[in-house]
């Protein structure tokens, strides 16, 4: 008997991958059987993408081995992966808009063959798997869901034995999701294994037979999702419940300094997310947290509050009870709303400008750095020096270019620049992303003292520990919708994990699930 007959389709043994000092995957073991739909749930940064990139041969593991049908893969790259039967549908697909479906498929194949034959095969495969697709259509006329079909059909043409799908539903409508699931089930029934990356718990429960849960680069458990609940999966993903330091202070009862009222906003970019009826109120002295997995509308929410994107009517955004939905960023800052965007270089700061000029960037009005339209260079330099001194920014002086500062130091400078303008409302996105622990603690302290002085602080973050430690109340952003606010002390991390996975926005449901 062939010893490989009973071998799993794919087996990973002790796979480790480091990026510099950071460990993305640590000794990951994983087994995928033929015909199995295998889920890979985990928080952002849990190491899911790194892992599948190694399976597809895009990244090379530092340690460990990959076994394909029982045999160790010696050399590995995407071309070999496709040859042995591994297909991958990426989250953000790259198609040529001006070309037809047929041309796009041909470009992605190693050996496309004659075009008329390929067109016939595309029709055949798309009919067989319920993926209606016209090879002659130009890609720019297709919806996002249809574009994803091109990628799937492209994989299917190579008769894969393992299909990797990276967050495939993030761009689909509910109807399209159901159709995709149907296709995947049909594929699995024919013996194709599927590795399904998602943080959406309901999808995993509905679709998958096995789940390998990753947290901080390690496997924390393997289970059968059909015997789990959303709550128990979430607990595995987030790591226990309530073990994190949480802030138990009662939310302040001050006046509303920032209000968003039923804010709708269309996505600004092709892969963006529409905001749908976002409502929130932040009071004086309060730190309000927005949790959620990246790409659920955080960018749009930030732009809608900072004034980089305008609302449909003034009444959607109130700063100190003043309707300002139609006011731009400069006017909102004049009213006391300061902000710190997620992206430091190129958004919060101009990399090639000096720190002095970067202090001027947002401080020109509130820090009084301009008189009659003319810049006061001395005042800008002194303001930059004040930021550098108060926030212990490591640099040689205000003349340093922003690009020469380390991430943590630049973040301290940017936060200092906004806080020293005495904002009534401060919106901060990912305040400590990529920042070392010392700088992170300093940034947290600055936010806490700003709130104590009566400002309303809104923190958008993917780091739950951070939100639990800082905020009085928090809401979860999921596919452009904001959950009802909860006092931080009332929620466990697992419950937030449920909300982040889109399980439900109703507090009663969470309690029921978690119980």
């Amino acid at each position, binding site marked *: 008997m062939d010893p490989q007959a009973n071998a799993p389709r794919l087996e990973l043994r002790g796979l480790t991958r480091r990026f510099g000092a950071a460990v993305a995957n640590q000794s990951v073991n994983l087994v995928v059987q033929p015909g199995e739909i295998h889920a890979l749930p985990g928080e952002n940064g849990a190491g899911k993408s790194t892992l599948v990139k190694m399976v597809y041969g895009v990244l090379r593991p530092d340690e460990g081995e990959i076994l394909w049908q029982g045999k160790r893969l010696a050399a590995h790259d995407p071309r070999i992966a496709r040859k042995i039967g591994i297909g991958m549908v990426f989250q953000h697909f790259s198609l040529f808009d001006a070309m037809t479906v047929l041309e796009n498929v041909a470009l992605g194949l190693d050996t496309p063959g004659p075009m008329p034959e390929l067109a016939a095969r595309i029709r055949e495969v798309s009919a067989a798997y319920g993926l209606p697709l016209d090879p002659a259509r130009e890609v720019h006329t297709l919806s996002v869901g249809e574009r994803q079909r091109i990628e799937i059909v492209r994989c299917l043409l190579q008769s894969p034995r393992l299909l990797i799908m990276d967050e495939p539903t993030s761009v689909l409508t509910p109807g399209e999701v159901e159709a995709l699931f149907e296709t995947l089930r049909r594929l699995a029934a024919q013996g194709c294994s599927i590795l399904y990356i998602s943080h959406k718990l309901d999808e995993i429960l509905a679709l998958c037979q096995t789940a390998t849960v990753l947290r901080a680069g390690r496997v924390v458990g393997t289970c059968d999702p059909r015997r789990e609940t959303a709550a128990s999966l979430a607990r595995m993903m987030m790591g226990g419940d309530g073990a994190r330091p949480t802030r138990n202070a009662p939310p302040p009862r001050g006046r509303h300094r920032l209000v968003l009222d039923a804010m709708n906003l269309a996505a600004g970019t092709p892969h963006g997310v529409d905001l749908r009826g976002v409502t929130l109120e932040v009071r004086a002295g309060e730190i309000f947290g927005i949790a959620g997995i990246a790409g659920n509308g955080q960018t749009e929410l930030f732009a809608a509050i*900072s*004034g*980089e994107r305008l609302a449909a009517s003034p009444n959607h955004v109130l700063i100190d009870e003043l309707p300002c939905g139609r006011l*731009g*960023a*400069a*006017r909102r*800052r004049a009213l006391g709303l300061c*902000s710190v*965007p997620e*992206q430091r270089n*190129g*958004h*919060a*700061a*101009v*990399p*090639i*400008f000096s720190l002095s*000029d970067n202090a*001027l*960037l*947002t401080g*020109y009005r509130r820090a009084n750095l*301009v008189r009659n*339209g*003319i*810049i006061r*260079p001395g005042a800008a330099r002194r303001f930059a020096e004040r930021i550098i001194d108060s926030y212990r920014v490591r640099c040689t002086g205000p003349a340093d270019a922003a690009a020469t500062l380390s991430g943590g130091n630049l973040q301290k400078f940017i936060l200092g620049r906004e806080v020293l303008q005495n904002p009534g409302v401060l919106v901060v996105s990912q305040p400590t992303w990529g920042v070392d622990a010392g700088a992170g603690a300093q940034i947290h302290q600055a936010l806490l003292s700003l709130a104590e002085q009566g400002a309303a602080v809104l923190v958008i973050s993917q780091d739950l520990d951070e939100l639990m430690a800082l905020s009085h109340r928090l809401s979860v952003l999921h596919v452009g919708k904001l959950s009802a606010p909860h006092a931080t002390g009332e929620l466990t991390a697992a419950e937030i994990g449920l909300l982040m996975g889109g399980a439900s926005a109703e507090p009663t449901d969470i309690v029921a699930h978690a119980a």
Partner: protein
Amino acid sequence: MRLRVEARQAPSPMLNALVPALSVFATFLASGVLFAIMGYPAGRALYAFFVAPLVTMNGWSELALKAGPLAMIAAGLATGFRAGIWNIGAQGQLTMGAVAGGGVALALPDAQGAWVMPLVCSCGIAGGMAWGAVPALLRTRLGVNEILTSLMLTYVATLLLAALVFGPWKDPEGYSLPQSRMFSDSATLAPIFARARLTAGTVIEFLVPVALWFAMRHALVGFSIRTAGAAPAAAGYAGFGEQRVVWIVLMAGSGLAGLAGIFEAAGPIGQLIPQITPGYGFTAIIVAFLGRLNPLGIIPAALLMALSYIGGDTAQVSLGIPNGAAGVVQGLLLLFPLSADFLARNRVRVVA
């Protein structure tokens, strides 16, 4: 063998200072070789091209007369280039400035008084701006690329001017030549000195780049333009709306081009003719880059470019060097500084 381009760690200040001088010198050298290949005595050709125009006062006056419009237009365009807005239709905006200002001048043949000239100039600015407003509107409302629209409108403007001077605005006593009547005295910029053609317009043309240098360097509006060019997202975050910046730089560039157009028509020319300038609007793009988009650097760049125009004429008259050679020299004048700039910032390495 392959070549690889690597960024230098930090360009040495010494090298930075030497680059413009070296590249101009390289232009002289390459032009000399070019003349020699064409069969002209290189030394005499270079003298005729680059030195002869500078030995008389009249030569300097002619130089300033040509460099002025180039400097003013280039300084206006550079504000846009700094913001990443590529208005390459200054030639059309210049033409429309001449049409609008000249139209007013022709409509007021008997007007007297000090108010006429400012009115004519304002209309020149407005004409240029109107032509710049079309790309600005299309870009801010519909996202149409301003490079295409501004360039194509140049051809419209040139043909419109031709239609006017061949048609309704043709001088009835002009022996059927395609030209308008002469402007009245109060609608004409008189020469400042008796024996040179310099006018008050020329003085303004050299003052504008200085003013723009100040605005770009020291005013908040200049800071917002530089920010928009260096980091568009940061400009939006700071509250320097992209659309506002697009309008400001396109209005500055087209308004100044329009002013240069009416200065030419109401100055040395004194009437409307089918071709107001020998392509100053296009040459100004070269001047802007030659001056590294710095309005103060643009002044010497404009003088150098004007020298190549006049030198081309001198060389043609004295040695019979074809006028096309002047175009080649102007091309070299752009090629060397730009490649020298690139090489100062990067090194090229041969890899096996």
